[in-house]
């Protein structure tokens, strides 16, 4: 037990040497009762388990094997758990403005003094919406495309989406178009997907991503 202890707080909610209570829970969840001479180890999601022989050596290496086996199972059951990191790596979404120079400032009025945590939360929450937008932008399935077409096929990294040029008169539509009107036009026609409501989380995320990729470009509404 001593050698397994460093892993316990991270991964293992209970080792089945414990109380009668946890015994009952486990036997209800496991399709087969633990084989004689082994114990069931459970992950902190309270679902994923592995069988560990009672006579397994109590070393750090063995402990690592158990945790690796549990995490491998969990990752397989939750393939999108890592979507934010995967999206950053694949599509390199531009990060939002860095507000860290505000840390420690403030008039102690409405917001009080800005803390590093504030800056982190602003950054993370904003970035996450743009990242989600990137996943939608790059996926015909997310867009509901009937012909396996996604936005990035004509607009790699949102190039030539020019959000800074809206609103502008769009002769083909006979009216002034906002960015979201053009997003929806593209979804309906080239992509052949499902038109999104103006407040649909996917629409909000697509706008966020497209604007994120043009960070730093001056607004110039009406530009052709």
């Amino acid at each position: 037990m001593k050698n397994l202890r460093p892993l316990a707080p991270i991964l293992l909610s209970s080792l089945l040497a414990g109380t009668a209570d946890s015994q009952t829970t486990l036997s209800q969840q496991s399709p087969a009762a633990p084989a004689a001479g082994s114990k069931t180890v459970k992950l902190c999601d309270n679902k994923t388990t592995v069988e560990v022989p009672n006579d397994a050596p109590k070393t750090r290496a063995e402990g690592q094997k158990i945790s690796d086996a549990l995490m491998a199972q969990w990752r397989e059951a939750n393939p999108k758990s890592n979507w934010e990191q995967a999206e950053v790596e694949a599509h390199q979404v531009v990060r939002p403005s860095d507000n860290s120079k505000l840390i420690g400032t403030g008039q102690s009025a409405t917001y009080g003094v800005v803390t590093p945590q504030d800056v982190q939360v602003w950054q993370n929450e904003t970035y996450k919406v743009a990242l989600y937008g990137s996943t939608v932008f790059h996926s015909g399935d997310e867009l509901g495309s009937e012909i396996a077409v996604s936005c990035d096929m004509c607009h790699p990294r949102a190039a030539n989406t020019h959000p800074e040029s809206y609103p502008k008169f769009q002769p083909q539509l006979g009216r002034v178009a906002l960015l979201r009107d053009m997003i929806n036009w593209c979804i309906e026609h080239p992509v052949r997907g499902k038109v999104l409501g103006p407040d649909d989380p996917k629409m909000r995320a697509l706008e966020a991503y497209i604007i994120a990729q043009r960070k730093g470009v001056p607004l110039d509404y009406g530009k052709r």
Partner: protein
Amino acid sequence: MKENGKIPHIKSVETRHLEERESLFRGLKQLDRRTFLRVSTGAAAAAAAAGVSNHLHSFLPVNVAYADGAGGGSKGFTFAYISDSHLYVKKTNERFVRQLLRAVDDINRLDPQPDFVLYGGDLAQLGRREELDLGAQILRSIKAPVRMMVGEHDWYFDMGERWNALFGSQTYSFDHKGIHFVVLMSVVEKDFWSARGMSPAERMRTVAGLDNAVQSAFEVGAPQREWLRKDLEKVPTSTPLIVFSHSPLYKLYRPWNFWTDDAEEVQAILQRFDRVTVLHGHTHQVLTNRIGNIQFHGMLSTAWPWPYAPQGLPALTVQMNRPNPFDSNDGLGDGSVAVHPDGLVDKLYNLWNRNPMQVRAGYLSSGGKSDIPVAPTLASY
């Protein structure tokens, strides 16, 4: 105007314009220089009278090239190209299939027929057997002989197995009317998939994303460079060289693989020749460059246009007009290449639903000082 007592058949201004232009093109190819000049002046006047004077700049120079080539006798020739069709199977996406068929019709209607047709790579979208088979079936209806080049979308599902079975080797050379042609597989990627435990489908999807940063840079690679060196050993430097590569054989913009990582090494092998032209696909746009004695031309796609890269655009590139998103075929097309007797080429971009654009050898040879193509009204943002 009456046909069988029914409503007269009325042709739109656009149809009439396109018909007139096409018959003009056809006729001109059979003319000698003097007659050509007379006819073209007449045509220009007629076109101006018909109120299409704004089109003159873009279509007259196309014909002058023919006159120049024809003036020296009949040693020059043309070949045509189709590229980047990105086919899914028909039940997934019929639009891309229709667009490839449109290009095949274009090429089959050329009169006289080109000596051969280059297919510029990315026949399939996800490298599936069914996609490649469908593409091969469609390309079989081309009347002229077809020369194939491979693209990354054809390769990274089964690592070329089906493509090779259908079309043979991806690296080869041939001689035609005094020109030495070389076809390269320039989209070799370093193994990014094994360490990540990717399935063939995941590997293909990663490569299929132009802006996916997980993949590696394209390269020709050492074994092919060695093959190229050997292939060119016996070719005299005075022989004009035309090289086909899917990616541009220079470094334009790495994030979209508008790029070949060992471009300098490949260029070094080509530098000793007097006249070299490289034709590439992948970029889906009018793209022009010159490095030393090497002239580079892009090819149009039949599937979708790409925007111009935000950085690295060669100074000699005159952009094509920004594609209109309301016209699903705008910015697409096919084209042909008129090879002069000296081995340099005039590159014609046959843009669908627009006037064609031609980039002439003289434009590149003069470093952009003469034969300048018409500038776009709406360039890239």
